[in-house]
């Protein structure tokens, strides 16, 4: 066997770039399996009556929470279609930007995009709520919302917002979504103490760590798994967004990665044989 040259990293990066670009330019529509848990989450949201109040809250870093965005955006579109109300409760300092991002990406705002939701009546963005820990903030929020936070993200007193006049404590909240890494405090307080069903569009690493909570709190805690969970939810909601794109990218990149590993071993073998000769 002729001695194969050792590939430079730059050559591999060019191939990886092409592997990313192919599904962006021409969607592959890769099929993927549907998960029972994702289907159950979709049915839970579908079963909520019009006017129900749902909270999107938790803490995370924006760059990592992008993995949770496909499912959350599709869910926001579903909620807007059903007339469900949403309150965004950020517990970390970067989370308000993420909440704004997913709501803007869903194009549901009436004034900006002609969607079904009007700010203040159908959805409210609360500011970052500081505290010694997420659990303390969540407990305070669920006991008395108006004592915990007094203004919204823009500085408007929440007493002036029609939606916030209807919600005062955990008794007024039907469901809790957490599209962030910080799902465990939500489970500890929102689920365990206040018995509110909580759903996380979890990042795949978070799913690996936190999925046992689904078995500890059956029927109360649900989690989707990373981008594939987001793609499953997009499919159920009739969307084609980031989740589908990532599945296509995984298709091309998985083949490239395995090919690269095999090529590396062939290179090593050819060098060993050459050295033996």
């Amino acid at each position, binding site marked *: 066997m002729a001695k194969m040259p050792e590939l430079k990293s730059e050559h591999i*990066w060019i191939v990886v770039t092409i592997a990313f670009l192919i599904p962006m330019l021409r969607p592959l529509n890769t099929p993927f399996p549907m998960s029972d848990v994702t289907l159950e989450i979709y049915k839970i949201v579908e079963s909520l009556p019009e006017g129900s109040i749902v909270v999107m809250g938790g803490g995370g870093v924006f760059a990592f929470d992008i993995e949770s965005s496909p499912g959350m955006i599709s869910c926001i579109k579903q909620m807007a279609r059903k007339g469900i109300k949403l309150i965004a409760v950020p517990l970390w300092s970067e989370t308000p930007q993420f909440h704004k991002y997913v709501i803007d990406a869903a194009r549901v705002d009436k004034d900006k995009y002609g969607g079904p939701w009007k700010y203040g009546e159908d959805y409210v963005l609360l500011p970052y709520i500081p505290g010694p820990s997420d659990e303390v903030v969540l407990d305070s929020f669920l006991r008395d919302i108006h004592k915990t936070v007094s203004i919204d993200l823009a*500085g408007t007193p929440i007493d002036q917002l029609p939606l916030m006049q209807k919600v005062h404590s955990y008794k007024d909240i039907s469901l809790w979504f957490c599209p962030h890494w910080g799902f465990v405090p939500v489970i500890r307080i929102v689920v365990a103490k206040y018995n509110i069903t909580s759903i996380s569009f979890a990042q795949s690493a978070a799913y*690996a760590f936190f*999925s046992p909570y689904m078995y500890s709190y059956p029927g109360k805690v649900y989690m989707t798994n990373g981008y594939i969970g987001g793609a499953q939810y997009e499919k159920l909601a009739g969307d084609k967004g980031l989740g589908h794109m990532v599945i296509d990218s995984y298709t091309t990149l998985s083949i490239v990665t395995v090919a690269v*590993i095999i090529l590396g071993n062939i290179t*090593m073998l050819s060098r060993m044989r050459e050295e033996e000769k």
Partner: protein
Amino acid sequence: MSRTVTYIRIYLARIIVIVGCLSILAGYFLTSPETAGLSSELQLWSSAISGFTLFIGLITIFARYIRSVMNREQNWPFHLYCLIVIILWVPFGFLQGIYSDIYQTLYLSTKITLHITIIGMMGWFVVSAMYRTFRVRSFRTAVLAILAIAMIFFNAPYLTTPYPVFGDVSYWLLNNPQMSASRAMVICGGIGGVILGIRILLGLERGALRMTGGE
């Protein structure tokens, strides 16, 4: 620095650590309103003090980078750029408000987008690292390479859709051997952290809390 000030710094740090630990433990194990009140008050102080660390960070950065720029050390243009961005950004946040549209847009366009880019770049580095790392030289490296390839394929939607059994195998591998091994590492790390904390408190770690004579 004089010896007196050094000793004050050493013993003050120890006293603060001991008082803080005792208050947290007392607030957790004792149920009297006084200890709960003391614990809450000290936690508030702790939250306030932790805010000062931001100022310490800023002062440190300014001190080091100004020296670097004046002495034209390596990478001084980047240090100057950092100082200019800080000087512009902090007053900008105060004047516009951190929740104003323009501040949010700039923050999203710069820091968050760059953070996403840094994380996304891992994809390229992982593939080139795998080219060099997963080379079968022994039984162990063969197991590593085969399992890595297996996990890549077993999680691939084009395989799990027609053959769901691969998804089940992947799920079992992740939730049994992988989870047990990763939890073992996390437990070891936690125990190691506790032991290190106790050693620091007892002065057995050299340099911690300026204690001398550590082992």
